């Protein structure tokens, strides 16, 4: 089970740990705060509780930078 992650001009395939993996888990993995990022799943904006399924394309857009 894999999903595609797009973040900062990088596109990579990642494996899904389990069926309950959420956007929030990915944000924690990357040490990102949900307060600074907007997530899209298969092109549509989703909240951080959204579950990721096999084959999904997840895009993380950083909207707030330090300072």
């Amino acid at each position: 089970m894999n999903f595609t992650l797009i973040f900062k001009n990088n596109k990579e395939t990642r494996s899904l740990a389990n069926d309950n993996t959420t956007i929030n888990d990915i944000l924690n993995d990357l040490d990102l705060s949900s307060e600074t990022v907007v997530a899209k799943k298969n092109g549509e904006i989703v909240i951080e509780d959204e579950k990721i399924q096999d084959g999904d394309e997840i895009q993380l857009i950083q909207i707030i930078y330090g300072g």
Partner: protein
Amino acid sequence: MKCGNPKIIIKRKQSGQTLCKSCFVESIQKKAIKTIKQENLIDKGDNVLVALSGGKDSVATLDILNTYKERNIIELCAVTIDEGIANYRNDGVAIAKKHAKRLGIEHKVVSFKYSFDITLDEIMKNPNHRISCSYCGVFRRWIINRAARDFEADKIATGHNLDDEVQAILMNYLEGNIDNLTMIGAKTMSHSPLFRPKIKPLREIPEREIGLYTIAKDLDVHLAGCPYAQESFRGEVSEIIKNLSKNHPTIMYSTLRGFDKIKLALKKEHKHDFQFDTCIKCGEPSSNEICRVCTFLDELGKA
């Protein structure tokens, strides 16, 4: 949930409210319009100059004010400042130009180099430089004020959001800068006729929601961090507020509300009659013989 659409794009921690894309976009527009109405930010027939960096806040401000232009309530124009920051500013300038063209708005780009014969990158190479934000704030205000007069604008609209306002309240309080503290608000007026009132239609909207608004509306924005931002006191204060907000999601709202309540009393107690005159060097309004811009330029050997 307002309309029943299960495709939620936000769960507001401060209220528990969940919204779909169209209800969220509507809620942001309504919030800004409410601020404009309540604070009396706009009069019919105003020519409003938008300080347009191409970032999410200024693009959202332009987008919302454009609804007033479309209804023939106001005229719009825009100015973009090129501070001269390599690998950063050019993208924002290009996006700003695109939006102005798309909306048919009179627009000009003014650089630090053109105005002061020095870029921010060059300033930061000077061994005796101050922190970057000091120059940026002071130089940008100078350019925006001039642009407002050139455009014959009645108001200057900026994209300051809730996070910016709360940071400014805390920064000025912590630094004991009561003069600056009393200047914070939705509308800033000045006694000098050379200054135009500044308005902040987005001041009650959190920064993240403005970012989400631009993405929800597919507005092209420049999303990047200023390479000099980490040096600032604002950055440190911002970090404190963000950490507090994790367990206290309403803290920014309560800080702003509380400040707005004490502001009148503060202004009354701390009344200053600024004797505005003009700077003997550049002719811009200044409470001192030489304004801050000319003082900084002096230090940089550019006077």
